[in-house]
């Protein structure tokens, strides 16, 4: 039993949750480093709606987030994932997944 517990603890680290605030028509932070299995939560603090939408091969999308709403994505693959707000294409963000 003890050996089993030790093996379990020695396995992959617990996943974390990171928050990206959308305020002033920007993603804060604009670049976020996380690990596979971590959860990224976007929360919209602006008056106008936003999305966080993958701009690459991997497809994910929070959908439209109105003021105060949250959207989340669990990182499944390593690499760099660029994303945009589809409503405001001048807004960009980047996830670096280790």
């Amino acid at each position, binding site marked *: 039993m003890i050996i089993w517990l030790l093996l379990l603890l020695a396995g992959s680290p617990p996943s974390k949750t990171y928050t990206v605030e959308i305020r*002033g*028509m*920007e993603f804060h932070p604009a670049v976020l480093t996380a690990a596979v299995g971590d959860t990224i939560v976007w929360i919209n603090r*602006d*008056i*106008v*709606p936003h999305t966080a939408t993958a701009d690459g091969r991997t497809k994910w999308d929070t959908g439209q987030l*109105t*003021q105060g709403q949250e959207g989340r994505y669990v990182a499944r693959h390593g690499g760099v994932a660029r994303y945009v707000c589809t*409503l*405001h*294409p*001048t*807004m960009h963000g980047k996830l670096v997944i280790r």
Partner: protein
Amino acid sequence: MLAIAVLLALTSAQQAQSPAPDLSDPEVAHVAVTANSIDIDMAKLAQTHTTKAAVRQFAATMITDHTAVNSQAAALATKLGVTPKDNAVSQFLQTGATQARTSLEPLHGAAFDRAYMDREVAYHQAVLDAIDKLLIPTTENAELRKLLVDVRPAIATHLEHAKQLRSQLGAPARTGK
């Protein structure tokens, strides 16, 4: 034309050695709601006249965003017990919008897209100028001023989006109307 109208209002105030026309808070609220409503109406016109997906998407964003701002403005006005009051700046904006609509309505396709995006660039620049030089400086209520400050980045983003989209549409440049 709209930009010129707002700038004329600002310029005449400067000539009178005043930093900006002295609008009351109910008048500021009216200008804000009018400015949003004008762009919503213009976007609805664009959705019936454009055949380009990017222009249609831009127009949809204008409707979504300016509707959200007007909802906040209405909620704040109710909370503060303020009834928006018509004034000369709102009337300038409305007159400019009527003239812009008259010139846009007969156009279709690429000609409409270029004229509409020219107008959106000029309009958002004029609204930004009005926020900075007229509306924020003259607003007394802190919550109404905060709403204007919070809205400003959205207007600046719309302006950049409009400029990018306009640059993708190519010549001819605006005629100066």
